[in-house]
């Protein structure tokens, strides 16, 4: 059941070509997705969030880059956003949220919940 060498070669070329096309398509889509993501910054200082109100558009994926400027760790937590992440002292991190519907989504710092409070307003 051996096939002619030319057919095998043609088939292999076809497979390689389609893999390349697929890879290009995937990377293109990933780039597109990246471009659509909005980035906003949030800082933690003296166990407070700056700014404590983040206004973002509806139906938009957002990358929140959090800078913890305190020497103590903090945990970004939000029941409404279903997000929870520990941020070490003097470091930064990233949390993706959305796309979200219009509304208010509260968040707080679980390690210092009395002071570290904020809200994401989607409009």
């Amino acid at each position, binding site marked *: 059941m051996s096939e002619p060498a030319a057919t095998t070669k043609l088939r292999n070329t076809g497979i390689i070509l389609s893999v390349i096309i697929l890879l290009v398509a995937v990377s293109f889509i990933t780039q597109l997705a990246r471009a659509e*993501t909005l980035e906003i910054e949030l800082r933690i200082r003296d166990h407070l969030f700056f700014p404590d109100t983040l206004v973002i558009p509806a139906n938009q*994926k957002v*990358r929140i*880059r959090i800078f913890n400027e305190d*020497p*103590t*760790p903090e*945990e970004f937590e939000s*029941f*409404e956003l*279903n*997000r929870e*992440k*520990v*941020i*070490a*002292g003097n*470091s*930064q*991190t*990233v*949390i*993706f949220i*959305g*796309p979200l519907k219009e509304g208010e989504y509260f968040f707080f710092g*679980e*390690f*210092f*919940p009395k002071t570290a409070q904020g809200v994401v307003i989607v409009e």
Partner: protein
Amino acid sequence: MFLNAVVIVLQEILEAALILSLFLAFVRYLNLENNDSVLRRRIWVTLSIIFGILLAWTYSHNFSRISDSFDYVGLEITNASIHSISCFFLVLFAWLLPPQQLIFDVSHRLLTLTLCMGIVVMLAILREGSEIMQLVGGILNQGQAGPPIFYGGVVGAGIGVSIGVLLYYALTGLSRERSLRTCVLLLALTTGNMAAQTILLLNQADWLPFTPTAWDTGGLLSESSVLGQLAYALIGYEATPSIMQVGAYTLGLVIVLLSPISRLAWSTWHGKAS
């Protein structure tokens, strides 16, 4: 700081304590007819706790490095991996669990069962322990609020362990059949919970696409309430889960709930063979 530390440590300890209690109840079920000789519980429990704490220490020691990896979503990726590995061993445990009357014929399988339990408990302690170490270590380094955090942690851990002990006695107080059924149900809920957590973490890291919220039961049972928190720790309650989370939860739940099929098939086959 005191009350805060109580709540955080309680939340973390509770999850690990519940898993451990559940497994100990299984062990007791397996041991009932065998004079406690089938599974020596002390060894694997002690070992998995020690290894869990060692791993948690390593994790929190390299916390920043892990956190910065994968373009700052390293924590999500690591935790999602830990959760999915736990899921795998929970499912394996459920399907390998032998019918009680056949335990003597499958002593070779008990090692695998013990390994499953050990790994899941170890990973639970790794997950929860590293977070406690992060909180305690980070704040103690500042030289402030040491005693309140320490005592808060001790109280939180005490309450968590107590709830675990209560669950163990509640489970073992039931009749044998009912106890096994409840244990399998709790095992299924734990598996579903972990599967859903994996999805949530990968969503948070943007490694999985967004899916809309399946429902909102926030009005019925708020996640921030005490009952909501308990339900979160026990069965992974979320007021607003995404469709993909619900799917993963259901899948994990169903796979474990179907595991009695293996015991049934086993008994039947064994009955024919002998």
